[in-house]
């Protein structure tokens, strides 16, 4: 599950978080591409199973059935659909720049700009990108 700006307990985005976000974005991009090509999750999975060589036919059929029912469950799962939507957003952002960390910075800076625009925080200082992403 992709969590963006909603970390509890005042914790922060570690480099591991940034890396995970980037990895997810890459994998999501592939999944999105493939699902577009194949139209439906079921056929995507079916094609994958078909592509498996070297296993006995009866095993392959069982696998295909199980994969098909899994795929239809997942395609209707609200969590999965939400993840896919978030993945599309991240993919869109990541496609603008090379590095996933820059993408995250962009997200956070937009959020910071939003916070600054609110009357209650008008007096706070948002420092330039020379000092990084923050306001104090």
């Amino acid at each position, binding site marked *: 599950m992709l969590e963006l700006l909603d970390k509890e307990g005042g914790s922060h985005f570690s480099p591991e978080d940034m890396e995970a976000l980037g990895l997810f974005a890459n994998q999501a991009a592939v999944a999105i591409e493939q699902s577009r090509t194949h139209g439906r999750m079921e056929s995507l999975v079916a094609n994958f199973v078909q592509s498996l060589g070297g296993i006995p036919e009866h095993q392959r059929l069982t696998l295909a059935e199980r994969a098909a029912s899994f795929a239809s469950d997942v395609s209707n799962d609200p969590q999965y659909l939400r993840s896919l939507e978030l993945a599309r957003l991240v993919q869109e952002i990541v496609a603008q720049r090379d590095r996933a960390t820059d993408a995250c910075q962009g997200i956070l800076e937009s959020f910071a700009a939003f916070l600054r625009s609110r009357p209650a*925080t008008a007096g*706070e200082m948002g420092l330039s990108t020379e000092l990084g992403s*923050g306001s104090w």
Partner: protein
Amino acid sequence: MVSLRPAYSAAFKREVLLELPPGLPVDVFSPAWAWGGSSGQGVKVAILDSGVDASHPDVGPIQGYVRIFEDEQRKLVVDTEPHEDSFGHGTACAGIIRSIAPECEIYSVKVLGSGLSGSGRIFAAGLQWAIDNRMAVCNLSLGTTKRDFFGVFHELADLAYFKHVALVTAANNMPIPSFPSVYASVMSVAAHDAGDPYTFYYNPNPPVEFGAFGIDVRLPWLDHKHITATGNSYAAPHITGIVAKILGKHPGLTVFQLKTLLRALAANVKREPSAASTG
């Protein structure tokens, strides 16, 4: 009333504040002992910020000006002529400190330029100046999130700690670690909304160790105005002012002694006498 709290301030919400045991027989410490009768007189306080407007009635004359900038050859230059506040932020911090320690000696170390621009290099140079010039306490209501500067500020923070220069730092309002506020050697501060400038809390789960008043604070700003604002930036100078008051009465305390004292006097730390001291 603000509905969104600055990052790192959640630990200081009234509903979640932990009441802590004293841990040491610190019952001799009281606010009266720590700072009673002190105005912070003679304590050198550096404010690393956007400058300070000494003409604001809440601030008044300050004792020194240091502006650090890069010349055309990108060399660092130090200018000690009086300067202005580019934004109001430094004046706000100075006003809070003055309201708690009216007679401390304030040095405006201007490391932020117009348009709120700043560079890690200039910020580090300002901190080096403060350490070299034997400031007793520095208010750092700023930081950098750039990892490239992690080592630079860590070294400076260690240097300050060993030279008994107290660094009081504001945590980032965004949930991103900033330097030097997350280091162990500094006194890092986030905001609470309890209103009283002398009420502060200790957080047993750092990296931000202390909470001070920083939500909906009335502040001096540019053009002799006042504003009401929220930020960890405005919590830090409350601690800076209290530290200046303490040092005015007990000069020469080390950073770890100051931290022990602050923890003992935190509003969420029990102050009943320990078993060892009764009888």
